[in-house]
């Protein structure tokens, strides 16, 4: 064991780049039992574990790792689920390198324990063992995976949005004995987990299992219900809900406002990924929804969403996929693992470059991008060097599909119909960081609709915190 502590973490097998670029199957294949026990053996079980401080949902990390080492996989899954309703998701998409693993003491001299890979392993083993999340007939569920449930309180909570924050809030509230109904606008629950993150990073069967687990706690998920149109927050409060949690996310796509953005072949990353992931356009014509991917795709942006769009484009048959980013390699905001995967698969970066116009042909289709080069100047407010245009550097990049992955803002449908909900100047809901309490009585909010586009686990953390605050509110606010 001590050897492997020094030699570094156990590798997780992946599909080779040349193979995976032709399919939508999961890229990372997960640990075997032997891999997992070896990696778990690297954990030195700190008395004051720093890793837990880096976890937005306070998972008892040393404990679940010890359980894996001792072969108690069901116990490990139970430890995870005590704090995190979606471990199979988080094991895959959390930026552990910025959180738990960043603080792991082993990381000071070598590689930190692969906490994310172990989380994924425990969650997947539980599912594989059939002890997982599918609700069976009464009594058929092994007690080990079912968290302890408080007795019913008789209070009802509406959760708006079935994304990471909403699902986390719903799970916690149900465990505390409240009746929970989740309202989701799309036809499937999961939010960004189903429409945004591609199958090859997060298989949709896993999201379904996690949603089934939430349902097994007694949560009702109502799809095709858009608060702001099919009903309002005030209606919910009037018709029997004692509190409301708003987790509607950051779903409004940003465009650059440059000429040519309405040409055919120009997508927002939201539309492109929704077609591919939620609507399964990658299985067209078995599924009816089409997506247009030309020979030369240009993805604008450098975050995880840009990487996802670029890697989907390659898998859908594009010959070249350029990733056009205004800063340099060092400044790419995407996770390092995803950047490496993308470049290994053949995504070609075009750094320090910004499009100024999208060029079209006579039929209204994209044929290229006029770009300018940038150089890095003084650091801006975020501390990153600000890109400055290089005069006279205009040039053409050939492209017949352009995907704008430059960020998302708050969707105003709900907030416009809830006038007494205080917003900040960008349209995000103003909510207390610790509790999610908004300016409106009985209404709490969390996730991207409060913070702006962030990560799955931060949204889940906010959902959990708000659930605790709602619980407290309901205890004080007896009818």
């Amino acid at each position: 064991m001590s050897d492997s502590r020094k030699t570094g973490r156990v590798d997780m097998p992946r599909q080779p780049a040349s193979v995976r670029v032709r399919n939508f199957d999961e890229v990372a294949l997960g640990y075997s039992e032997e891999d997992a026990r070896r990696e778990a053996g690297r954990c030195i079980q700190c008395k004051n574990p720093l890793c837990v401080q880096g976890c937005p949902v306070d998972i008892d990390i040393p404990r679940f790792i010890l359980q894996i080492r001792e072969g108690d996989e069901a116990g490990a899954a139970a430890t995870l689920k005590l704090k995190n309703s979606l471990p199979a998701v988080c094991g895959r998409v959390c930026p552990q390198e910025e959180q738990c693993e960043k603080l792991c003491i082993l990381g000071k001299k070598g590689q930190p324990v692969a906490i994310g890979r172990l989380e994924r392993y425990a969650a997947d083993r539980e599912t594989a063992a059939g002890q997982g999340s599918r609700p069976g007939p009464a009594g058929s569920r092994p007690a080990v995976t079912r968290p302890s449930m408080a007795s019913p309180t008789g209070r009802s909570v509406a959760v708006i949005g079935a994304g990471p924050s909403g699902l986390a809030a719903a799970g916690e509230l149900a465990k505390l004995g409240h009746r929970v109904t989740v309202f989701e606008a799309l036809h499937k629950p999961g939010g960004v987990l189903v429409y945004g993150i591609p199958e090859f990073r997060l298989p949709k069967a896993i999201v379904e299992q996690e949603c089934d687990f939430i349902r097994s706690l007694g949560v009702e998920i109502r799809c095709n219900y858009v608060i702001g149109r099919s009903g309002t927050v005030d209606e919910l409060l009037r018709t029997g809900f004692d509190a409301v949690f708003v987790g509607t996310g950051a779903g409004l796509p940003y465009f650059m406002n440059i000429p040519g953005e309405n040409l055919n072949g120009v997508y927002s990353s939201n539309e492109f990924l929704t077609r591919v992931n939620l609507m399964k356009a990658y299985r067209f014509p078995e599924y009816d929804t089409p997506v247009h991917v030309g020979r030369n795709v240009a993805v604008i942006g450098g975050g995880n969403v840009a990487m996802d769009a670029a890697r989907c484009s390659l898998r859908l048959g594009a010959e070249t996929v350029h990733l056009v980013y205004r800063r340099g390699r060092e400044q790419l905001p995407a996770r390092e693992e995803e950047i490496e995967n993308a470049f290994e698969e053949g995504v070609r970066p075009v750094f320090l470059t910004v499009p100024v116009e999208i060029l079209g042909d006579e039929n209204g289709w994209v044929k290229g991008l006029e770009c300018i080069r940038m150089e890095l100047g003084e650091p801006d407010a975020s501390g990153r060097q600000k890109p400055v245009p290089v005069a006279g550097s205009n040039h053409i990049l050939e492209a017949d599909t352009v995907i704008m992955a430059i960020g998302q803002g708050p969707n105003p449908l709900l907030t416009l119909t809830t006038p007494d909900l205080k917003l900040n100047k960008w349209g995000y809901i103003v909510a207390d960081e610790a509790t999610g309490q908004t300016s409106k009585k009985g209404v709490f909010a969390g996730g991207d609709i409060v913070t702006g586009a962030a990560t799955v686990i931060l949204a889940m953390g906010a959902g959990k915190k708000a659930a605790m605050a709602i619980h407290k509110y309901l205890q004080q606010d007896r009818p």
Partner: protein
Amino acid sequence: MPQLNEIIRKTSLAPGIVRFDLHCPDIASHAKPGQFVVVRRDEVAERIPLTIADFDAAAGTIVLIIQEAGLSTKKLCGLERGERVTDVLGPLGQPSEIENYGTVVCVGGGVGAAPMYPITKALKAAGNRVHSILGARSKDLLILEEETRRVSDELHVCTDDGSSGTRGFVSGKLAELIASGVKIDRVWAIGPGVMMRAVCDVTRPGGIPTVVSLNTLMVDGTGMCGGCRITVGGKVKFVCVDGPEFDGHQVEFGELLKRSRMYADRESRADRDHACRLGLKT
């Protein structure tokens, strides 16, 4: 008690045009004229926007009138009474701005007569003097003639081939009305893009405010994808949340028409494959 999204009634209105009465109580109780729904027929289907042609909050029903155009509408029209549409989301979009404008003309081209109907009804109820113009390629494709007549002061019918009413286009009929000296305070036009553009060309010289309802490609219908974006008055608007109704004189119809062709080649491919699959079954 019918199931959610169950087809309570199916009526054939014309060759290739079907009317569905759907059990959607929450949508029926929230719907207003001018709004639409997004439907997904089954697990493999596309999400497509359809304007609400009528709604009855008490009965819990909404009416959708669908013309078989591409694969998705053909498959939808194949559903029968008692079957369910897998997903119906709505009501979406901004409602029509209904008030007493004075004299209004409501122009419905082809299956556009369907979304035009609840707006016409509401305008009439608000006290307007309502002229309706209904147009179709020929008599057998003309829909909602009697219903529209009941909520209009005057009904003008025109067909491309002259088989019913006057021979000619709805825009020509509207030009005649204007030329005859009828003072028109506002025009509504719903139908194919080229028709709405022609109507706007007719009303532009006299500066008659003209509202058009756009039916663009869409995925979610809630402002998330931006696939329905269109330039109106030099600004990019999302049809799903900013519309579907816009000032017709400000809409860039050229762009609208080009964007509507985005998947034309794929649509024909899916259509062919679908026909093949059907062929295998029989």
